[in-house]
């Protein structure tokens, strides 16, 4: 299913999120099961399935990483469930260092400051990668697509680290 088509939007990485949001609500207002509550059983089921699709599509286009993956999938490059090991030693080293920093938060005198500083680092590098990803996805050639796929794989590491950081922060607060 082409999610961009569903929202009648151009299949590009740069996307007007406000526009996406208002189109999402427009579709929801038409297809939500609550609008079909006096319909037949079959029509109600169709409404549930259709809104499930719309929700899924919106969820995927809203987030840059999922949007990029969907864009690549439409171009015939599927990376969402791949099992593949990474071979960029420099990148892996950097990841290990960040992980060590995360593990050290507990021992630091001012954990909040450390969390903030790691958060800033992650944010910066993530934004830089997202920018490269956007550029790579503009032209549709197989080299550019491969480059984009690599950037997505790297970004996944950063998103995961950020999740872990949030978890640590949460544990500290509780």
């Amino acid at each position: 299913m082409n999610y961009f088509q569903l929202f009648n939007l151009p299949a590009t990485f740069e996307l007007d999120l406000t526009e996406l949001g208002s189109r999402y609500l427009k579709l929801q207002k038409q297809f939500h099961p609550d609008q079909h509550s006096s319909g037949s059983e079959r029509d109600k089921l169709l409404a549930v399935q259709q809104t499930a699709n719309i929700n899924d599509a919106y969820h995927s286009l809203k987030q840059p990483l999922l949007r990029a993956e969907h864009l690549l999938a439409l171009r015939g490059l599927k990376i969402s469930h791949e099992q593949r090991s990474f071979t960029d030693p420099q990148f892996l080293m950097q990841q290990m260092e960040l992980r060590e920093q995360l593990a050290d938060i507990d021992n630091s005198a001012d954990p909040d400051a450390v969390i903030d500083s790691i958060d800033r680092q992650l944010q910066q590098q993530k934004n830089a990668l997202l920018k490269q990803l956007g550029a790579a996805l503009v032209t549709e050639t197989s080299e550019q697509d491969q480059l984009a796929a690599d950037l997505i794989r790297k970004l996944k590491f950063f998103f995961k680290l950020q999740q872990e950081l949030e978890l640590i922060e949460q544990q500290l607060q509780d």
Partner: protein
Amino acid sequence: MALLQIAEPGQSAAPHQHKLAAGIDLGTTNSLVAAVRSGEAKTLANSQGRDMLPSVVRYTADRVVVGDAAMAAAVEDADNTIVSVKRLMGKGYQETAALKQQVPYRLVDQHGLVAIDTVQGVKNPVEVSAEILATLANTASETLGGELNGVVITVPAYFDDAQRQATKDAAKLAGLTVMRLLNEPTAAALAYGLDSGQEGIIAVYDLGGGTFDISILRLRRGVFEVLATGGDSALGGDDFDHAIVNYLQQQTGEAELSHQQMRQYLTLARQVKEQLTERDDVSFSVPTARGDVDGKLNKTNFEQLISALVKKTIRACRQVLRDAGLSNEDIVKVVMVGGSTRVPLVRNQVAAFFATEPLTSIDPDKVVAIGAAIQANVLVGNKADGDTLLLDVIPLSLGLETMGGLTEKIIPRNTVIPVARAQEFTTFKDGQTAMALHVVQGERELVDDCRSLARFELRGIPAMPAGGAHVRVTFQVDADGLLSVTAQEKSSGVQANIQVKPSYGLSDEQVATMLKGSMQYARQDMQIRLLREQQVEAERVLEAVSQALRADSALLGIDELEAIEQALTELSRVKQADDIAAIKAAIEHTNHLTDDFAARRMDQSVRSALTGHNVDEV
């Protein structure tokens, strides 16, 4: 025939089409029913003039009593008077071990589910709740002057699948058509939202008798979008009462309380709690084995007793803000729901945490029922405009058991519903034709720490070499938050047969048996009811297909059109008679003939929905 038709603004001009709908707040302590009348949503009073019905059911040898009269017997006949049954909904017997000390009646094991031993035999929570629902529906029918076409029942946002299903089963048993299970905080926001035209991000803090919910919603142009929800389905004002009871026991030295004493102490505790809302200290006398003993409790002591409980709710507020990716400054309003929010400590702590004075202009006991009534009025079709849209989320993650007792999340919490996610499985043995799946709900890594929802057995997978069969299992959660599962083998397209064993729920057969066994439905009534249900469904199919034909018959070939028209003629003929099976068959035949047509129309409407319209209209 009426010569003059006067319609309310915004409502149908044909009064005979006005349908009766009600919103029901099925609460732990009290339940209410509300309806929209003359354009205004109001709670409805029973024949005694009371609109709050205590959620209490008493079984005597030959009768069932609900509400105030049952409550009055709570002390003398504690064993047969069921209070706070909501806490038992969708629960296994083992899970309720802690509650056993707290409830003044006998809990028993009914095929793994918790049930109550009464003078009328073993009653399960679904049956008890059905009595409360039937009483409320009766109040509504009498006030509105006719049988209800449909109801909206509210549930805590935090209710899991088993608890929601149990609520729906109770409604079925009470003979009600549930148009929607609505989350309580969403209902409360709906009540306030339409009143004040509020826009922005709001928090709904709902502390009822037995459950606590905190939800964050975004309101804009009639859209109520739940961003995150959290809470504790076993924390509420009842716990405040129990904290006071413990205190009373310490004061009097009464270590063991009989069921009857427990009831007395709880009633006293509630009175003391309520008085401390207005006053700084309260004196009372506590009945003990040695006679009455004087007691005292001041506000400060009371607040110490409950401060850990209130803190727990604030922690949940923090968590839910985190889930929504927001901070407390983003919240423009806080809506207070539930009688327990009258406790000053609760109000102060909530005000301090969100740094805003909470909204209390609608009675916190009634606000949920009022919101439910507003939504019921929309869903039944009395208000045809699609102005409001409620986008709810799933409160707890759904996952599958994998190797080594670990869970794999399939649908994470706070995902917007309805939602469908598919997962593929392969066979690991040659010729394997069946597969077992265990679905759990919760956030933890280990299956044992999550709540078991159901075990599924997929049968009828075509025999193939190991890894050859790919079964695609689709988990679908509907707008009520209820899960259903379908499975298909990919290479052969064979639909695998699914057998569901709910871990803490009644199977469809058990519900059917209960319906048949219920005193309210003699055999003949059952037949009449089933017939009416089929006739209503037949009418809906006729209406839907006729309308589709009027709009889009161009999408059909001449042969298709003819076949469908024939099926419709047949369906309207069969509908007049009283053969349930024949009506059912005619509906299925019509559905089968129009499946493709419906899919084509859906595609077309999705395509046209976003073209040729100005986006500002949204």
